[in-house]
């Protein structure tokens, strides 16, 4: 494990006051291994040019590197075709693209989009917007008290008017891993499509978009140890083909006249303007990095850390851990302490070098359901260690001491 950690230069750098960094905010954004940083630098230093434009040496080189990255991403996802992988700025844009370019076209008044109470705002607000635009209706799968989708209610939520189930692969607050297979089967019974928000799930577990067969998958590069500003929308070819572009401009056209234009083939149709091309290439390097370690190994490492962290947090009196037990979730633990507000907790943990998030984590409806305004969230990644958990636990005791004046 030490060799994985040493791949990430930032983790070896002490903070401004000399304290070692204990980074427990990977669910927000993961740190970058040296190979990803090198890929960015190499691109800018040795062969940078705009993509899809140049016949000169760098123009050809950059296109090869970009399309090579797309191929490796498609392979990681199990996509049937490379053209089904569209580069976007991240999960948020990917979901908005589907909402505006697919749902807005398909939805009619009275149609239904099925979401649920645990979604990140990025997989909730775009649907609120598109149902407002189309006269469709937003429905919600309720949650059980332990933070699962209440599948007993699923049949009641589905109907002939259900056109889409939009669901997160893994909750960014509770860590709940959702039963995508079950949802895909249920969607098939009413002819609905399924979009998976993979922002949290893709970095932690192997995925095959053909099994169970999902229609759209959105994820971000920066949570997968890749650069910020780049992400992916996977969409089934037949769906991407029927969609009009979301953004219009350069690269996404076939032929442009003064009054009308025709669209480029996939995936260029959805990649208007200049891509963050170095970032896309470096995302390919990040994909190489995780596939070299292997998702099985990543899962083993993170699971051991999760079990250790959750067990030790549970030993702290009064601390409330929200969501499922460790057997039904990924490497995220959100908790509240009845006498230390999450914001104060994060502030005091910071002094011990612990970097984590306090707040509503862009999931206000979920926090309302939990009956709390905010939680403190520990999110683990492949580079964390038992020593990180030691510091976390000690720091929580310290925070409680300060605020309770024990």
């Amino acid at each position, binding site marked *: 494990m030490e060799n994985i950690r040493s791949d990430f230069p930032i983790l070896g750098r002490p903070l401004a006051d000399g304290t070692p960094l204990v980074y427990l905010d990977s669910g927000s954004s993961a740190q970058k291994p040296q190979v990803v940083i090198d890929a960015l630098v190499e691109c800018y230093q040795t062969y940078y040019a705009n993509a899809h434009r140049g016949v000169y040496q760098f123009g050809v080189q950059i296109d090869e590197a970009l399309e090579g990255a797309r191929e490796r991403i498609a392979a990681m996802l199990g996509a049937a075709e490379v053209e089904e992988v569209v580069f976007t700025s991240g999960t948020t844009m990917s979901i908005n693209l589907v909402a505006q370019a697919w749902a807005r076209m398909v939805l009619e008044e009275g149609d239904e989009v099925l979401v649920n109470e645990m979604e990140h705002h990025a997989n909730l607000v775009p649907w609120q917007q598109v149902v407002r635009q189309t006269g469709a209706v937003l429905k919600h799968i309720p949650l059980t008290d332990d933070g699962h989708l209440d599948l007993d209610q699923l049949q009641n939520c589905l109907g002939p008017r259900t056109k889409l189930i939009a669901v997160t692969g893994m909750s960014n607050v509770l860590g709940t891993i959702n039963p995508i297979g079950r949802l895909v089967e249920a969607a098939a019974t009413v002819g609905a499509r399924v979009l998976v928000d993979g922002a949290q799930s893709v970095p932690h577990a192997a995925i095959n978009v053909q099994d169970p067969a999902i229609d759209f998958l959105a994820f971000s590069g920066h949570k997968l140890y890749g650069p910020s500003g780049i992400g992916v929308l996977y969409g089934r070819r037949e769906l991407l083909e029927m969609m009009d572009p979301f953004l219009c401009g350069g690269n996404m056209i076939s032929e442009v006249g003064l009054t009308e234009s025709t669209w480029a083939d996939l995936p260029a149709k959805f990649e208007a303007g200049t891509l963050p091309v170095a970032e896309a290439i470096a995302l390919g390097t990040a994909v190489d990095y995780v596939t070299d370690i292997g998702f099985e190994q990543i899962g083993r490492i993170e699971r051991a850390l999760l079990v250790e962290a959750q067990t030790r947090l549970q030993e702290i009196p009064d601390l409330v851990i929200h969501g499922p037990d460790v057997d039904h979730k990924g490497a995220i633990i959100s908790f509240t302490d009845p006498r230390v*507000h*999450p*914001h*104060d907790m994060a*502030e*005091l943990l910071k002094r011990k070098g612990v970097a984590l998030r*306090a*707040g*509503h984590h862009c999931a206000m409806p979920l*926090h309302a359901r939990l009956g709390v*305004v*905010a939680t403190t969230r520990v999110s683990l990644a492949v580079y964390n260690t038992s020593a990180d958990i030691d510091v976390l636990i000690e720091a929580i005791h310290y925070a409680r*001491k*300060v*605020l309770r*004046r*024990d």
Partner: protein
Amino acid sequence: MSDELYDDLILDHYESPYHRGRLESASCEHTELNPLCGDRVQLQLQIDEERRIQQAYFEGEGCAISQAAASILCEHIEGRTLGEVEAFDARQMLDLLQVRLTATRQRCGLLGFKVLKTLAYAYDGTAGTSA
């Protein structure tokens, strides 16, 4: 244990706040949220004909800084006129807290102050005014 941020003044007000609760005879009330962290502070003021604050109460939820600051603020403004409140600035509010806040935590420390300013500027003398 003494702490540079969570010192006795802050923790005393956090644990035993001054005038936390409902004020039935309030002349005006207003609530603000800090959307970043979910902190919420509501102020209720009872204001007399001379535009003097007779009583100030707060309610809310949030971190120790936002809640203690609201408590300290209520204690400070009772007996003062709205004119004095209008002249009371953010620097003075932060000084009242007696601890140094980072830019992010200043939003917590100034949440009640923001509510107070809204009330002071919006108050037109009619009972029940809510900005």
